[in-house]
């Protein structure tokens, strides 16, 4: 997936000279995951800049650059290092257009790795999309395949407003796929139905998509026909796709890696409990990270939902149906 991300950068920088890349180690090093590999050689040190080690500066300068007509694509090295940048993202990036009634705007993309499963040190495995999704004025995107990473990143860079782009670190090297470098963007705000099924709707995103698809295979073997939706754009949520699916299946399981309490799964459950309550044949289940700190790597796979927990939740949902 990481090659697809570098490729999307390359296409857009080639076709739009306002696009500039900034972050720690994005230059000569090509990013610690190589997501910006080769860009500095190709587009020069002005358009691909290593910044000093300062996340607030990365986000705050991106605001200033965007307000003055550039289209910055900023990298935060790991999601656990997002917090120093949050003030600039929440109090300025998300609001500059609103605040100035459209006079200034912030077409910025902030990219960052998302989630665990790569045996990394503390703070390198976070998935706190909730914090971003709750902020009005931000779009939040999380691709689950190289092709979607390519198409969604193009869309994010072209979007006239700020987009938070969360890249599942576990997928950077795990998933390979030939992606055509055709500059075609995928729609933001649209979920992808990756597998159709009539018994239970499973909504997920990012690295959990692969687990969920595997779980769906397993469930099929047990006679349960799961529909798998990759949310892809985490905010705003494509409510229609979810409600339509739950309308057919009558059952909902949400799977995410983030902690459960006020995780994005809560919002999806709430939307369904408000708009499709009478469609529901069973309680809504969430399969999530636990409400504790993402543990160091020895236990990280005990924290992150896997096939087994997803299968169990879907089975219990079937069993609990009225």
């Amino acid at each position, binding site marked *: 997936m990481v090659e697809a991300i570098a490729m999307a950068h390359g296409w857009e920088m080639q076709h739009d000279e306002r696009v500039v890349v900034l972050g720690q180690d994005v230059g000569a090093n090509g990013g610690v995951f190589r997501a910006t590999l080769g860009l500095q050689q190709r587009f020069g040190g002005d358009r691909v800049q290593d910044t000093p080690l300062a996340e607030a500066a990365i*986000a*705050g300068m991106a*605001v200033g650059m965007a307000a003055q007509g550039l289209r910055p694509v900023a990298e935060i090295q790991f999601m656990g290092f997002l917090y120093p940048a949050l003030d*600039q993202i929440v109090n300025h990036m998300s609001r500059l*257009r609103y605040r100035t*009634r459209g006079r200034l705007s912030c077409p910025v993309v902030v990219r960052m790795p998302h989630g665990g499963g790569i045996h990394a040190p503390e703070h390198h495995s976070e998935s706190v999309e909730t914090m971003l999704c709750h902020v009005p004025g931000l779009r939040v995107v999380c691709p689950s395949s190289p092709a979607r990473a390519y198409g969604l990143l193009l869309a994010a860079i072209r979007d006239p407003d700020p987009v938070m782009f969360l890249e599942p670190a576990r997928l950077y090297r795990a998933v390979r796929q030939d992606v055509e470098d055709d500059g075609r963007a995928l729609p933001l*705000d649209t979920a992808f139905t990756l597998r159709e099924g009539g018994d239970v709707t499973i909504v997920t995103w990012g690295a959990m998509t692969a687990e969920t698809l595997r779980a769906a295979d397993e469930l099929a073997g047990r006679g349960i026909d799961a529909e798998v939706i990759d949310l892809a754009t985490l905010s705003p949520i494509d409510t229609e796709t979810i409600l339509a699916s739950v309308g057919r299946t009558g059952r909902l399981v949400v799977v995410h890696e983030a902690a459960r309490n006020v995780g994005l799964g809560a919002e999806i459950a709430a939307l369904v409990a408000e708009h499709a309550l009478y469609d529901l044949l069973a309680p809504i289940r969430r399969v999530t990270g636990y409400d504790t700190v993402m543990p160091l790597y020895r236990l990280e796979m005990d924290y992150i939902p896997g096939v087994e927990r997803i299968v169990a939740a879907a089975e219990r949902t079937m069993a609990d149906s009225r």
Partner: protein
Amino acid sequence: MRTVAEFRVEYSQLLGPDGDAVGDLPPFARDVEELVRMYRMMTLARSFDVKAVNLQRTGQLGTYAPCLGHEATHVGVGAAMRAEDVLAPVYREVGTQLWRGVTMREILVYWGGDERGSDFAVPRGDFPWCIPIATQTLHAAGAAMAFKIRRERRCAVAYIGDGGTSEGDFYEAVNVAGARALPVVFVVVNNGWAISVPLCAQTAAKTLAQKAIAAGIPGVQVDGNDVFAVRQAVSSALEAARDGRGPALVEAITYRLSDHTTADDAGRYRQAAEVERAWRIEPLLRTRRFLEKAGLWDEDRERALLADCAREVEQAVAAYLSFPKPEPGAMFDHLFERAPAHLAAQRVMATRRADRAGGH
């Protein structure tokens, strides 16, 4: 032990409190029109300020942050900038904004609780008021980076208060500006107080100009009540920045003659004697004395100017007061260029409710 680096901080004042020149005056100080323009703008800022505080006291304006005492710094900076430069203000820089073309009506609309005040007709590129302390310094650095990348001969100017220099964002901004030699000038308005916290509780640094040393950029200190010194220092910093010689920091020493905002009561934490002392060196009087001593000003002109300013202010206030209130739906405008579907639904809800409640 070997000395590997040496630094000094210089202070400059051109105009003493009594209106006498105490240094070599720059060319603009011999340009009569320009001098009057500067004095006029300082006076207008003060007239506006008094009125704005009044409007707040009578329930016609929200919380307001007065600029009383800061007029020389504000106008000095405004006059040093070019139209194509970009300003990142905090919340108090009325004088600079007026100089650059922001209207008094816009300023009132903003403090009157309406986002439309930030949609300046002029200057379109300036940043809006910035409430989260120090964050604007990074916007200025980013703007400067944009100018540099596009090879435009433009500069960014960021304001920051003495209190603001304690925030991480400020240091990150001056540091990155230095590291990338960005065309940006940081103006530190040292007015002695951050709400109730005096400078000595804010930092052990003897000067705020020396904060520049941490970033490897030049830092100077000027008398912030001296419009000549401020303009001169900022001008030469901007010139250097424009020529690709990198950023600078200018500390302007002044005093907040008012409460922090209309929500504050400075009497709780500072001595009347200190404020009295500060009134003796305030910026307007010394500029007026200079003009008088140069034979360019007298009681009549002063009266005429004050009347002029009062009229302008009244017009702005009238325009503000008759400005239609925003519709509830406006809170959904401009959040996104392309609004997602659920916002349209929420807008309908908010609007209906306002209708039912009989509007505003």
